[in-house]
């Protein structure tokens, strides 16, 4: 397992900006990026400080990656499924597992959650966003996992040793991961999550029904808010709650950029990344001395 002072999840402007400061402060820094993020989709950025000519998002990100590498930070591509804490942070990814003294979530803005009738109404009543937290309550029972990518497969792997039976529901999307043979995969679109007081099953758009005791939501990849919630950081809707130092309520866990909500601009992300870095430097140094 690779160990770092600081791990930054996300390689957008907030994450890379934070890495500049932590590397310059001589902290062993790793930036984990899943993909290039929202910024690289912007062709012309005309409102960023100091740019007389429009610059593309790709160019900004590539330059910034070069900059942080030259300062000694490591960059890697991986998708993080889970962050946990036990005298230090452990980050579980698709490719590897990492350890850090402080973690920054800079995962960008949250994806839209599925708007399936009944889903939000039954949250905490059979609808769960955290397999490792809630699997225990479904011992020997039948559950569904909503998703079609590696994150859904990861959540399934947490559930299978505990539950009686698990079904993967892709909600009309093609299966884009591999799941164990015993898992039934249903690709029909969902019409509703059903139950009075607690989840009793789902109805498909084709009229079919499936009885379930629980439904675990694992759409797309784990966003900042999902990772934060699993470790016990406060969220407000899809945003991670931070104080003025970009600290969450979990000691050593920070968040910056679009995942904290507010203005979705590079300047705000860069500023928050810098602030979070200062806090992490302080946090790590206090533990080294």
């Amino acid at each position, binding site marked *: 397992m690779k160990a770092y002072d600081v791990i930054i999840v996300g390689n957008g402007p907030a994450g890379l900006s934070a890495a500049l400061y932590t590397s310059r402060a001589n902290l062993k820094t790793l930036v984990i990026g899943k993909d290039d993020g929202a910024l690289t989709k912007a062709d012309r950025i005309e409102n960023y400080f100091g740019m007389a000519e429009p610059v593309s998002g790709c160019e900004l990100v590539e330059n910034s990656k070069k900059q942080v590498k030259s300062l000694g930070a490591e960059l890697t591509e991986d998708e993080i499924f889970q962050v946990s804490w036990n005298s230090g942070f452990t980050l579980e990814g698709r490719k590897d597992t990492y350890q850090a003294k402080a973690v920054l979530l800079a995962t960008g803005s949250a994806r839209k959650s599925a708007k399936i009738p009944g889903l939000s109404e039954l949250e905490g*009543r059979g609808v769960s966003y955290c397999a490792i937290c809630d699997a225990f309550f479904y011992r020997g029972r039948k559950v569904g996992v909503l998703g079609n990518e590696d994150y859904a497969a990861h959540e399934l792997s947490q559930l299978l040793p505990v539950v009686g039976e698990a079904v993967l529901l892709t909600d009309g999307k093609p299966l884009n991961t591999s799941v164990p043979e015993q898992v039934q995969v249903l690709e029909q679109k969902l019409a509703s999550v059903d139950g009075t007081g607690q989840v009793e099953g789902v109805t498909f758009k084709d009229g079919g029904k499936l009885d379930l005791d*629980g439904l675990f939501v694992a759409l797309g990849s784990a966003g900042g808010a999902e990772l934060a919630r699993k470790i016990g950081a406060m969220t407000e809707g899809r945003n991670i709650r931070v104080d003025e130092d970009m600290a969450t*309520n979990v000691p050593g866990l920070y968040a910056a950029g679009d995942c904290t909500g507010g203005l979705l601009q590079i300047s705000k992300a860069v500023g928050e990344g810098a602030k979070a870095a200062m806090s992490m430097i302080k946090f790590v140094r206090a533990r080294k001395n």
Partner: protein
Amino acid sequence: MAVIEITEANFETEVLKSEVPVLVDFWAVWCGPCQMQGPIIDELSEEVQVVKFGKLNVDENMGLAQKFRVMSIPTLMLFKNGQAAATVVGLQSKEAVKQLLGV
């Protein structure tokens, strides 16, 4: 007031028959968010005198967790006059718990 450990054995006397409202924190050792909820409940138990605070380990008291349909933790349940009067699921801030308690 210290937080009381609630079990199957003392649930009736400490919670159902309590003369004051009781806030029960359903938790487990393996639950990350519960480790953050615990200290908030500890703090509140020192500050709020009109409510009794209890922690219920779901691993050791599965029957009670099932009886009150706890399906996700942390779950905070406020008992008044022997009845579950309010339930909130997921990690709650100190302010949110205060609001739940009406203090």
